[in-house]
C-alpha cells in the first residue's frame, strides 16, 4: 500500500477542477424546471427506443402482411405478391433494426415523424393531426362528464353514507367499474342497436356523416355529437364508478376532519362548508387522478373506437398495428408517451396550485 504522506498534496490538488464542474451540474439539475424537462426527455426517449424494437419483434412485418393479403384476396403467387409489395412500400424488411433506429432518430430530432409505410406519400404527422382531435374530443368529453357526475354522486354518497341511497349507488358503481368498458360497448351495441333498434348502427359510423360539410354550423356540431354519443356513453359508463367510489371515500375522510367540525361550530352555512371546506379538500386527490387519466385518453380509446367505427387516433393505431405500419405505430406511441408525460406534469402543477401545502418548493 502506498504511504499516505507523500501523496496527500497531490490528492488535494487534483479534484479541484472536476469538483467545480460536478458542483455546477448538480446545481443546474437541482433547478426544478431543468430537472423536470430532463426527466421528461429521458422518459420519452426511453419509450421511443423500447417501442421501436418491440414492434419490430412482433411476428410479421408490413411486407409480409401485404403479401398475405394479396395472395389471399387476389390469388397471386408468393413471388408476384412479394415483388408488388416491395415495389409499393419504401421499406426494406431485411435492413438491420439498428440502422433503421439510427435513421429514425435522426429524422425525429428534426421533428420529422416520417411517412407511412403502407400508404406511401402520406406523412404520419398529417395522419395524427387528422385523427387525434376526434379522440381528444370524444374521450375528453367522456372524462369531463364522468368526472363531474362521479364527483357529485360521490359527494352525495358520502353525505348520505350508510343510507339506502349510498348502498344503491355503491353497488351500481362497483358493478360499473368491475366490467371493462368494451363489454359495456358491446352490450350497448347489441341491446340498443341490434335488439331494440333505438338507433341505426350503420348511420353512426365515423366521426360525422359523409353528407355533412365540416364547419362551425349547428347542424354539423349536432351531427358530430350524435356520432360521438355512443363512444362517450361507454367512456362515461366505464369510468364513472371509479370516480364515484374515489370521491365518496375521499369525502368521508374529509368529513371526519377537525376543520369541518370546527366550521360547523363556527356557524358557517352548509353550502359554504360543502364547497370550500369539504369539496375543496376532498377533490384534491381527484384532480391528480384526472390529470393522470388525461394521459390515458389515447390508450383507452383503441378498442372502443374500433368497436364503434369511430375514426379517431385509437382506431388509427389499431389499423397501423394490423398492417404492421411501423412508422405510423411509432408516431402514435410517441404521442401517447408525450401526453402521459405532459399530463403527469400537469397533475403536479395542478396539485401545487390547489394545495398550498405543496406550493412551498414551487414559489420563490
Amino acid at each position, binding site marked *: 500500500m502506498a504511504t499516505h504522506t507523500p501523496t496527500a498534496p497531490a490528492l488535494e490538488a487534483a479534484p479541484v477542477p472536476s469538483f467545480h464542474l460536478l458542483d455546477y451540474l448538480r446545481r443546474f439539475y437541482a433547478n426544478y424546471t431543468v430537472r423536470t424537462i430532463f426527466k421528461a426527455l429521458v422518459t420519452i426517449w426511453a419509450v421511443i427506443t423500447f417501442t421501436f424494437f418491440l414492434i419490430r419483434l412482433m411476428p410479421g412485418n408490413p411486407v409480409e402482411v401485404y403479401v398475405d393479403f394479396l395472395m389471399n384476396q387476389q390469388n397471386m403467387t408468393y413471388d408476384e405478391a412479394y415483388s408488388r409489395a416491395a415495389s409499393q412500400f419504401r421499406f426494406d424488411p431485411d435492413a438491420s433494426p439498428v440502422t433503421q433506429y439510427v435513421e429514425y432518430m435522426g429524422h425525429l430530432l428534426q421533428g420529422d415523424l416520417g411517412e407511412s409505410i403502407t400508404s406511401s406519400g402520406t406523412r404520419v404527422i398529417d395522419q395524427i393531426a387528422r385523427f387525434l382531435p376526434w379522440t381528444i374530443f370524444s374521450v375528453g368529453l367522456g372524462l369531463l362528464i364522468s368526472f363531474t357526475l362521479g364527483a357529485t354522486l360521490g359527494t352525495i354518497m358520502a353525505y348520505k353514507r350508510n343510507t339506502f341511497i349510498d348502498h344503491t349507488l355503491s353497488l351500481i358503481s362497483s358493478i360499473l367499474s368491475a366490467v371493462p368498458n368494451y363489454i359495456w360497448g358491446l352490450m350497448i351495441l347489441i341491446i340498443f342497436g341490434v335488439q331494440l333498434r333505438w338507433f341505426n348502427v350503420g348511420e353512426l359510423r365515423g366521426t360525422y356523416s359523409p353528407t355533412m360539410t365540416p364547419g362551425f354550423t349547428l347542424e354539423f356540431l349536432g351531427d358530430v355529437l350524435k356520432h360521438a354519443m355512443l363512444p362517450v356513453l361507454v367512456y362515461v359508463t366505464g369510468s364513472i364508478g371509479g370516480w364515484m367510489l374515489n370521491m365518496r371515500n375521499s369525502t368521508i375522510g374529509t368529513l371526519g376532519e*377537525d376543520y369541518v367540525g370546527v366550521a360547523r361550530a363556527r356557524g358557517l352555512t352548509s353550502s359554504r362548508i360543502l364547497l370550500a371546506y369539504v369539496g375543496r379538500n376532498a377533490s384534491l386527490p381527484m384532480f391528480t387522478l384526472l390529470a393522470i387519466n388525461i394521459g390515458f385518453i389515447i390508450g383507452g380509446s383503441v378498442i372502443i373506437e374500433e368497436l364503434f367505427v369511430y375514426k379517431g387516433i385509437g382506431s388509427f393505431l389499431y389499423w397501423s398495428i394490423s398492417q404492421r405500419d411501423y412508422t405510423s405505430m411509432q408516431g402514435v406511441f410517441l404521442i401517447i408517451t408525450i401526453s402521459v408525460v405532459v399530463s403527469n406534469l400537469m397533475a403536479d402543477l395542478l396539485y401545487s396550485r390547489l394545495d*398550498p401545502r405543496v406550493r412551498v418548493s414551487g414559489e420563490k
Partner: protein
Amino acid sequence: MIGAVKPTIVENTMKNDVILQVQDLSIVYQTPRGDVMATTDVSFDLRKGETMALIGESGSGKTTLSLSFIRMLPNSARVTKGKILYSRDGVTRDILEMSDNEIRRFRWSDCAMVFQGAQNAFNPVLRVRQQFADTAAAHGKTDKAWIKQRTLELFKLVRLDPERVYEAYPHEMSGGMRQRSLLALGVLLDPQIVILDEPTTALDILTQRAIIDVLKEMQQRLNFSIIFISHDLALAAEMASRVATVYAGEIVEEGSVEDIFYRHRHPYTLGLIRSVPRLSRQQDELMSIPGEPPNLITPPSGCKFHPRCMFASDKCKVDPPPLVEYEPGHRAACWHTDKVAAARIAFAAQD
C-alpha cells in the same frame, strides 16, 4: 347599538347575571350494545364573566355535556330530558328548541367552542384570514375593513405577529400559533360563552402557560364566560372561579374553587385531588381511586360511585344521593359528606 334599545324582558325566570342555565339534562348515545347514559340529570348555572371548570376522569361525560350546548352532538346521541336555557340581552331561549338556522347563528356568535384535540381546526387550503372572514360573513358581517381591523387586533391580543399570521396558511404556523389563532377566532364575534375542551393538552408547558395568560387577559378585556374542561387540576384551579366534578355523567359536586379544593365533600372529588402528585408529598402517599369508571350502559344502582368508594354503606347501594347545598353555592351528592370532610381534614394534617 348597545344601550340604544332597552331590551324587553320576556318572562325571565333566570337570575340577572345567569347566561346559561342547564336544567335536568340527560343525554344518551344509542349504540348496538345499548344506550350509553353519558349525561344524567345535570343542572347548573353559568354566570356572566365567570369561568366554570368541569373536572372528572376520562369518559365521565364532560365533552358530551359541552357539545350539547352548541347542539353538536353526534347523530347517535339523543337528549332525553331537560332544557338548556340561554339568555342574551334579557331574552331567554331554550337552545334545544332553536331552529336549524337559529342554532347556526347561535354558534360562535353566542357560544364558541375550542374542541378537544382539534389539531387541524383550520382548513388547510384557505388562508387563516379567509377563515376569519368566512366566520364573520356567516354571521352577516361583511364589512371588509372591519373584519381586517378586528382580525389584526385579535392577533395582537393573543400575542401573535399580526402581519405575519394574517397572510399565512395554517401549515405555516406551529401548533401553538394555531391554537392562539383559534382562540382569537373564538372571540371574533364577541361571544358570551367560550367552551374550551382541553385547550392546551397537545402543547408544551411553556406554550400552555402563554396560552393560559392570553386567555385570562382576553377574558378580562372581553368579559365572556368560560366553560373550561381539563384533566389538569392545577390549571382548572387557576382558571376557574367555580368547579363542577363530573362522575359517570352526573355532576356530583359543585362549588367555588375554594369549596372544591379545600372543602370538598364528595369522595370522588377527594380522590381526584389526592391523586395529583405534589412535591411536598411522597409518591407512596398518592391515592388513586380504586376500580374503573363504570359502564354507562348498565350503571351501578344507588350512588354510581359506590363500587369505588371507601365510605360506601348499604344505603349507597340502593338510594341515589341527591345534590344537596351545604354552603351557599356549594352542592354535593353523597350520603357521607361528614366522613369525607373528616378524611379530608385528616389528610390535610398529614401533609
